């Protein structure tokens, strides 16, 4: 009672089931575990994971002490994160950047009474963190109503780089004097995020571009976009040795996320290549040596971008099991430590060299019933670092670990 088609179909079904079985076996192998680990591996193998986690961490610590770079294990426990300073800024700002001594914030709505009679550009507020003095200047002035909105803000190469759009849909990047706000240059490019390398400012919006700060030459670069319905935009994260790590996938409040794909873009050859696709449930960021992967279930993974070694894995603090409620969705890496925030003002601090050393710090000043919004920027000096947090009309300077 079967047809040739039925026979063929059943055979093909068996073959596919078998291939899936093999695939799952492959998933469990150490070589691809980080990339394809199933959702509940951690649940099923907590005890094994703990042993592996500790041994991997020890191995990672040894490796790092050999080459002596970047993340030397701190000899003392992490110091408490404390609020060093706080300044009030205009309500509504959403972007922050810093040169280590000053912070600039922007993004507040243009203060216009009448939308048809508004020639005020978006405003940027600068706070001198030494004196506490605050000054405000516009991004640019026009002879028509603008209602500018700032999308990206970056301090680099002794200049302030601002991406702003006006009500007419004109979107530009301005290079400003960081103190006076004088326009040094403008570029006809769009960016939702900007970062700086040693030799260029990079931006990503509908395209990837690069500006040479010395010559002012702007170059548009081919960009691979992995489109997804729930993907709200590409994101650009970090830099290493002239290479920009292009991380796709932004993370909304949904329990499922589109699969981010980490692309590495090498300016010297002009072509990006895939670094590692993820399983669609992790968040990525980078510092100057590592690519960090925050997995909702399995904790942190750290990929050394210069080696093919398996990623080191760290456990998440139990209170962090709901990543959607963490304010700093990308971890902040300061002095080799990793920080996250939750909306109620708790700072989670991870020491990458010691996965068992997880500290939490409560910043009572941040307690709020509402989910706050804001932005973060890190700062580093020779012996210590910290971060500035823009939140609810205030800028907080937080101390980081002393290392």
């Amino acid at each position, binding site marked *: *009672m*079967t*047809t*040739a*088609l*039925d026979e*063929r*179909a*059943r*055979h*093909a*079904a068996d*073959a*596919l*089931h078998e*291939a*899936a*079985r093999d*695939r*799952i076996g492959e*998933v469990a192998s150490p070589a691809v575990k980080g990339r*394809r680990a*199933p*959702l*509940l591996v951690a*649940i*099923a193998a907590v005890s094994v994971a703990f042993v592996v986690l500790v041994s991997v961490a020890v191995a990672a610590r040894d490796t790092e002490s050999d080459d002596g770079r970047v993340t030397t294990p701190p000899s003392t426990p992490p110091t408490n994160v404390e609020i060093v300073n706080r300044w009030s800024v205009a309500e509504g700002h959403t972007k922050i950047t810093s040169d280590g001594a000053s912070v600039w914030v922007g993004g507040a709505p243009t203060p216009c009474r009448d939308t048809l009679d508004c020639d005020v550009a978006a405003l940027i507020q600068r706070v001198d963190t030494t004196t506490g003095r605050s000054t405000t200047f516009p991004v640019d002035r026009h002879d028509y109503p603008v209602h500018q909105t700032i999308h990206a803000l970056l301090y680099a190469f002794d200049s302030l780089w601002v991406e702003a759009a006006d009500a007419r849909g004109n979107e530009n990047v301005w290079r400003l004097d960081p103190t006076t706000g004088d326009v040094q240059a403008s570029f006809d490019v769009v960016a939702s995020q900007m970062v700086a390398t040693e030799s260029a400012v990079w931006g990503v919006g509908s395209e990837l571009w690069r500006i040479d700060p010395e010559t002012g030459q702007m170059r548009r670069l*081919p960009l*691979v*976009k*992995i*489109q*997804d*319905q729930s993907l709200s935009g590409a994101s650009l994260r970090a830099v290493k040795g002239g290479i920009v790590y292009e991380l796709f996938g932004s993370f909304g409040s949904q*329990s*499922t*996320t589109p*699969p981010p794909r980490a*692309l590495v873009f090498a300016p010297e050859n002009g*072509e*990006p*290549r*895939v670094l590692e*696709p993820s*399983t*669609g*449930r992790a968040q990525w960021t980078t510092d100057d040596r590592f690519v960090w992967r925050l997995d*909702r279930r399995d904790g942190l993974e750290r990929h050394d971008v210069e080696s093919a070694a398996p990623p080191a894995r760290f456990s998440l603090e139990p209170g962090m099991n709901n990543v959607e409620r963490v304010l700093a969705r990308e971890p902040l890496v300061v002095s080799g430590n990793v920080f996250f925030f939750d909306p109620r003002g708790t700072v989670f601090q991870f020491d990458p060299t010691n996965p068992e050393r997880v500290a939490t710090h409560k910043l009572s000043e941040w307690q709020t019933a509402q989910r706050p919004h804001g932005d973060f920027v890190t700062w580093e000096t020779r012996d210590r670092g910290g971060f500035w947090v823009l939140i609810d009309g205030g800028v907080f300077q937080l101390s980081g670990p002393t290392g």
Partner: protein
Amino acid sequence: MHARTELDVGDREPVELTEDFGTFYARERRSVLAFAAALTGDWAIAEDLSQEAFAAAHAQWRKLHSPSNWIRRVIANRSASRWRRLGREARAFARIGAERDAVTLAEPDHEFWAEVRALPARQSQVITLRYLEDLSVAQIAMLLEISEGTVKSCLSQGRRNLAKTLGLDDEEAS
């Protein structure tokens, strides 16, 4: 923990099952992955889809009455939109020299699933559920939340199309 009652697939009486998510995941993981792979033709995408669907199921575990059906419906729906993007992705990956993680089976099985994916989305889903999951018309209708008539129509058209493209006889053998 997370114990729940599951309604079985199909038109049978609901079967009381006390099952936690871990058990469900272990039981369904392979077949769900195979289902997603059949619809997308790409292991990485199939794994992503499966992962997303399981994560979504886990998030609302207590609310689901038939997670087996629900998770396949999620994958069927999402694969349809994902599949439309694959052409663009494939071109993008080709530009950057990256290889996709295509599902490759020995012939003629590979050809069979390739032709199934070439069918209109609904036909492809119905055929896949029929042959890969061995579901009845009623079960498929319940799973996809469409009428049995629609299932029969899709099944008939899909089989006819497949028989034609694969050069197979769809007449019943004695």
